[in-house]
């Protein structure tokens, strides 16, 4: 405690020099904070976009069709049925399944019309996509069974069909000439990771979509599955593949007539890219911290030379060598730690600034703040030891005579 006082007094006596010495560490730590914030922020925003697609989402697409030797892409064939979906729903680890019947259609409400995607889905769809309602209610399983002409509108559709702000719930929207009663609206979800407007959609019971839009009542466009937890996605994916192979009577070497995909692959690829970037940025920042540490060492060495007489005097009046060592070490650790703190504050301000100017999402993991300050203290010990040792091994009589 006393040593801290002595060191602090010595530092305060040379305020401008102390500040200049700290500068290297301040810049280093601020750089660490800002770069890590940018890296982590980028990673979190990618993660958020992926999560926005749905929780633990697995999508089963039909396989491709071959017409005269030309193979179309996935989804071109019709192989998946609502019964496939019900069978999958019984698998352990599956939280919910919804068939999806997709179509594009011109829709009309009153004097306004709009072209949008109309998806026929099951009531489980909102859970699978983690998509809350903005108003009204979602349609029920009864509506699916009876192929009821009810619709739930996405926000973009609401804005285009009801620009005057009246509530769409209870009103009628005409899809492909068929009037549907609007029972609810979905909360805004924004763009998907691929830049699509997810709110530009209308959801109706998939049975109604089959009857009124696609005209064929056997097959669905795809199946959306939600796994109970993120850890079991791969397991569920394998089970779904196995089950569908059984149901579709596919034996190797025959190719699957469907394709099971999950977003975890995309998510992990994206987050590992983010991690690499974060690591690189942190590496650059760490180098600047070390340079800052060398700066501290230089100034402390100069300081030892400049204060040789002071050291001699302190020894003459009774300071033991170890006390001198501790004083100089404490000085450099205090400098480095204070520099670390100022750097954190500047880094946080800089992060706010970048976030405001560049409209980048920013995230500062608290562990990095603790780590930066701790690391600067370590820089202080490491680069302060040599000058401190040099000071403490001075012979008092030579130190006193030093001019």
């Amino acid at each position: 405690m006393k040593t801290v006082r002595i060191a602090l007094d010595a530092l305060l006596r040379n305020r401008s020099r102390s500040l200049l010495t700290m500068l290297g560490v301040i810049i280093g730590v601020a750089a660490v904070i800002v770069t890590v914030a940018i890296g982590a922020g980028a990673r979190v925003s990618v993660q958020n976009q992926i999560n926005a697609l749905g929780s633990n989402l697995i999508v089963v697409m039909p396989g491709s069709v071959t017409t005269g030797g030309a193979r179309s892409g996935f989804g071109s064939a019709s192989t998946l049925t609502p019964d496939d979906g019900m069978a999958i729903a019984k698998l352990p680890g599956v939280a919910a399944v919804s068939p999806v019947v997709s179509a594009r259609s011109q829709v009309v409400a009153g004097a306004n019309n709009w072209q949008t995607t109309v998806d026929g889905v099951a009531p489980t769809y909102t859970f699978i996509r983690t998509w809350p309602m903005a108003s009204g209610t979602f349609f029920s399983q009864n509506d699916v069974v009876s192929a009821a002409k009810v619709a739930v509108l996405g926000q973009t559709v609401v804005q285009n069909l009801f620009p005057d702000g009246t509530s769409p719930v209870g009103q009628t929207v005409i899809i492909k000439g068929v009037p549907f009663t609007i029972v609810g609206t979905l909360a805004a979800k924004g763009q998907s990771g691929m830049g699509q407007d997810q709110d530009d959609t209308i959801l109706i019971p998939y049975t109604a979509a089959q009857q009124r839009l696609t005209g064929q009542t056997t097959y669905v466009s795809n199946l959306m599955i939600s796994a109970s937890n993120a850890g079991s996605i791969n397991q569920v994916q394998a089970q779904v593949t196995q089950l569908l192979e059984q149901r579709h009577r596919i034996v190797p070497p025959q190719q699957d007539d469907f394709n099971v995909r999950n977003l975890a692959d995309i998510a992990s690829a994206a987050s590992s890219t983010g991690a690499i970037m974060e690591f690189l940025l942190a590496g650059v920042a760490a180098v600047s911290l070390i340079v800052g540490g060398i700066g501290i060492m230089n100034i402390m060495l100069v300081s030892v030379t400049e204060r040789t007489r002071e050291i001699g005097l302190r020894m003459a009046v009774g300071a033991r060598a170890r006390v001198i060592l501790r004083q100089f070490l404490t000085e450099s650790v205090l400098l480095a730690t204070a520099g670390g703190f100022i750097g954190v504050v500047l880094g946080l301000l800089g992060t706010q600034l970048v976030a405001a100017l560049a409209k980048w999402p920013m995230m500062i993991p608290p562990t990095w703040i603790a780590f930066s300050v701790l690391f600067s203290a370590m820089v202080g010990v490491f680069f302060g030891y040599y000058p401190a040792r040099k000071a403490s091994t001075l012979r008092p009589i030579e130190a006193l005579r030093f001019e």
Partner: protein
Amino acid sequence: MQPVVQVQDLRKVYDLGTQQVVALGSVDLAIEPGEFVAVMGPSGSGKSTFMHIVGLLDEPTAGNYRFEGREVANLSGDERADIRSRRLGFVFQSYNLLPRTTAVENVELPMLYSGVPDKERRRIALEKMKIVGVDHLADNAPNQMSGGQQQRVAIARSLVNNPGLILADEPTGALDTKTSQDVMQLFTRLNEEHGITILLVTHEPDVAAYAKRVITFRDGHVVEDSLRRAQGGSIPHHDKGEAA
């Protein structure tokens, strides 16, 4: 009462590789409590080396040194630092006050290392500053004080741990005549009124004249050791028992 300083056959040889320089060649001396001793001699006579060894800032090459009855010639660095801290006070030619540090903080400095409690330090420092007459300058930094004032602060600093011996190395070397006289009168007063033992190194006879005993060094040997009567001439000093 045992002597404050007792050296026997004290030698200091500097080994410069090609040749050896004898700074002190067999010195025998004793300084009793309450003495005011001036050490004189031309430069290179060994007087400074002698004082550094007595002040435990330097080690002798050979010989015995008993400080307050304790053999100290071969102590470790820490043990010597502890004795300097508790039993010795230093006054330097160039004052050696810490810059940008107030007078009272400078006076407190030795107490940081001798373990005096926080609250006590300020009180003791001001008390000693009052004795040397600079208590009104407590909050001044060294560059706000005259040379004489700075040296008085330095003297107050040497007093704070109630040392058994004060070592003053050319304390008036940087001062004008009038100020030198004031400082020497202060030393005289500290010696006579407070019974403080003082060992002072100087090459000025005027300054040495304030001391009760003058030891003259030449070429590493004591060539003269005499007691003075108040204003009069000197009488030879042989037996340490006659001192004071």
